[in-house]
C-alpha cells in the first residue's frame, strides 16, 4: 500500500517526486512497491499524461480520480491553474476524498513556493522545507 507522488511542470518535466507508504491501516509510511512496478513508475505517470491532455479541455474539473489505471495501480491527478500537474499513482483503494484534500493542500504549498523570488516556474523543487511539509501532509491524509 504505497503512493508515488510527482509534480510535473508545464513542459511535463518532473519538479518533485515522493514515494511514501500509507499511514492508515497500521502502515508505517514506508513505501513498498514491488520491483516491477517501481522501475516503471515514472513511465506509468508519464503515460497518464496522454489521457490527462485528452481530458483537460473537455471536462470542467481539476481533480481526476481514476484518470488511468495500470494493473491495480490507480492514477489520480490534479491540475493547477498554471498547468502544473500533481499526479499520484497508488494501489490504495477508496481514498479518493483524502487524496483530493492532499492535492488541495499541496497546491497551497506549491503556490507559496512559487512566490519565492529564488524559484522559477518549471525548476525542480529542492526546498527541504517543502519536502518536509509535503511529508507531513502525506502523514495526515494518506
Amino acid at each position, binding site marked *: 500500500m504505497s503512493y508515488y507522488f510527482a509534480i510535473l511542470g508545464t*513542459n511535463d*518535466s518532473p519538479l518533485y517526486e515522493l514515494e511514501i507508504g500509507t499511514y492508515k491501516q497500521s502502515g508505517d509510511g514506508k513505501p513498498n512497491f514491488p520491483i516491477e512496478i517501481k*522501475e516503471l513508475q515514472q513511465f506509468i505517470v508519464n*503515460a497518464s499524461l*496522454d489521457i490527462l491532455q485528452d481530458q483537460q*479541455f473537455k471536462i470542467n474539473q481539476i481533480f481526476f480520480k481514476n484518470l488511468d489505471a495500470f494493473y491495480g495501480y490507480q492514477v489520480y491527478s490534479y491540475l493547477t491553474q498554471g498547468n502544473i500537474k500533481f499526479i499520484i499513482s497508488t494501489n490504495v483503494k477508496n481514498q479518493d476524498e483524502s487524496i483530493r484534500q492532499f492535492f488541495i493542500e499541496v497546491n497551497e504549498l506549491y503556490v507559496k513556493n512559487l512566490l519565492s523570488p529564488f524559484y522559477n*516556474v518549471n525548476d525542480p523543487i529542492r526546498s527541504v522545507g517543502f519536502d518536509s511539509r509535503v511529508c507531513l501532509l502525506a502523514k495526515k491524509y494518506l
Partner: protein
Amino acid sequence: MSKSLENVALGLRSKFNENVYNVIGLDMKGAPSLICKQLIVQNYCPKISVISTTSSDALASSLGFGNFLELLRCFEQGLLDQDPGITASNGSNLRLTVRFVSPIMDQLREQEEFLQTRRSSLGGSASLGGSDSFSQTFSVSELYNLNALDPFINDHIKDVDSIITASDDPVHIKLARNSIYLKLLTKSISSTTISSFEFFNHPIVQLFVVTSADSLETVKEALSGWKRTAYPSWLDIESILELVLIVVDPEKELQDGLRLQEELKLGVGVKSLIVPLNNSGDNVDVGKPVFSQLGEDMARTESSERGLPRQVYETFSDQIQDIIHKQLIPHMERKVRLWTEEYVAPRKSFTGRFFNAGKKWGGNGAKKSFFSFGSSEKLETTPEPSGSSYNKKDGYYNIKSPEMAIRRLADWNFMLRDYRSSYTTYELLKKDFLNDKAYNYLASLQEFMIISLLMGASNKVNPLDKPPISMVMNGITAKIISEVINPLVDSSFYSYLSRCNLKTYSVRLLLIIAELFFILGQSTAYFGHSQASASALYYNEAINLFTKLIDSHLLESTTNAVLMERVAYIYSTFGQPEKSPKTTVKESYYEQDNPRKLQVPKLLSFGQTRHRKSILWLLLAAKELDPVSKPAQTRLLVECIEDEIAQVPGHDVAAWMHREDGLLYSLKKSLGI
C-alpha cells in the same frame, strides 16, 4: 543459416500489401491493420479436400513432392497474392482463395488420435480402434496445439534476427519485424480441425486426383470408398461437391483421359476436368503455404525452397482458378440460394414463427401442458423432448437438423464474403442454441456474429477505396459496442474457456475481434477530424481486448510480448494520420522574445496522441522478450523507445525516462548500449 526475406515476411509480393503500405506506411512497431484484415478474411476460405491415387502421387513425387496434396498446396500462395481484398470497386466479382486439405477421414482420425493421447496422458482409458467408424461422442478438439505456439514464434524470431543482422536496409528490417505479429496472427487463427459446431473447415469440394493410367475401377473405388466410412452424424457429406481431376500427358495420353472423362460422366455421373501436363520449361519457385497448421509447418521448415516447371505451374494455376470460379463458387451460390429458401425463409415468415412458437411450448413445456396431465413421470424418461434436434447426451446437433443447415448457410455466406447475410442468418439461431444449452455452438455462433458485424462495418470504411468523406458511416456506435458486442464477447469467451475448456478458440476470439476493432479505428481515423472520437472508441476497445488476452495467461511469454508490442503499435497510431497545421506562424509582436516565456505545446495534436502510452507498452514488451535471450529484438525495441522519447519536447523529460532506477536504464545496461 540465413533466410531470404521472402520466406519470412508474409505476402511480400502481393499487390494488396503494396497498396496498404502506400496508404498507411511502414512502421517498425507493427504491421498495418489492413494487412491483418486481409489475413483474417483469407483464413476463412473454402476448403478443398484432396484424395489422390497412387499413380497421381507417383507423378507428384516425380516433381519432388510427397503427395499430390502437397503439390496443390503450393498454389495457395499464388491465390493469396492475387487477392485484391474487399473493396467497393470489386465487391461483386469475387476472387476467393481456397485451401487444400487432406481427406476428412484422415483429419478426423488424426484429431481423435490426438485426443486419445491427451486423454491417456491424463490417466484415462485409451483404446484406439483401427476401425473405419468414428465414435459419435467425438469430443471437441482444439484448433491447434497451443503449447507449440510459443516455440514456433521463437523460431520465427530467430529467422527474423538473421535477416536483421544481415541487412542494413531499414525497409527490410521493418518488414521482417512486422512479420512476427502477422505470423502469430495466422497461426493462432488458422486451423484445419473439423469441429461439429463450425463449418469453415468442412471441405466444400472433394477433389479426386487421378491420372489417365488409372482404370475406371480404381476411380470408382476411390469415389465410393470415401463415402463408405461411417462419419459422425454431425458431419455433412451430402453437400460436398465431388470433382475428378484427370492429369494427362497431352502428347500420349490425351485420348485415354478423354475416354475416362466420358466414362465417369456416363457411368458414375461425376464431373471431371482434364489437366494436360507438359513437363518442360524453366523452374518457378513456389512458396510455402501461409496458412499451414502449426505442427506441419515445424516439420518441414527445411524443405521450404521448392521449384516447379513453369509449364506445370501455369497449367495448374489456371486449372485451380477454373475450379474455383466455374465449380466451387457456383456450387456454393446454388446451395446458399437453396438453403435460404428452404430454411431461412420459413423462419422469417409470420406463419413460420407462429408454428415454431407452438412447437416450443408443446415440446419443452409439455409437462405443464394440460393434455399431459397425469403422465408427467413418463415424460421425464423420454430421451429427448421434441422440438429440438440437439443430442444432449453427446452434445451435438444432427447434420440434418434445420439449426445446422442454417449455421452452414451462414458460414458459407461468410466464406463468400457476404457479411451482412451471414450476420442476419447467425442471428436466427441464437435463441435455439441458448435454449438447448449447446454452449460450444452458442459460443462459436456469437463469435462469428460479432466478426461478421465488424467485418461488414470495416468494409464500409476502407481507406483503399477512397470514397467521399461524407459517405463514410460504419454504423458501429458506442451504444452498439456496449450493448451488443461486449456482452457477446464476454459470454462467448466465458463459454469457450470455462464451459468448454477450449483455449485456442478463446485466443482466436479475442485476437480476431481486437484486431477488427483496430482495423475499424485505423480506417475511421483515416477519414479525418470528424471521426476522431469514433476512432478513439474503437482503439480503446481493441486495447481492452488485447490486454484481456495478455492478462488471461493463456499464452506464454514471447507471444505475450508480441501482443504487448501490438498494443504499443495501436497506441502509437492513435490520432494518426496527424493533422497538419493550417495556420502559418505569425510574426512576433515583440521585437525580442522573452526567453523565460513558457512554450505553448502543439495545440493541434494536444491530447490526440498516445505516444507516452506507447513507450510504456514497448518497455513492457521489451522486458517480456528478455534482453538476454533475444538481444536483437530487444535492441530494436529500445531504439523505438528512444525515438519516441526524443520526440517529446524538453530535455528534463528524457532525463527522467533514462534515470537509473527505471526499467529503460536496466534494459540498456543489460544490452550493453
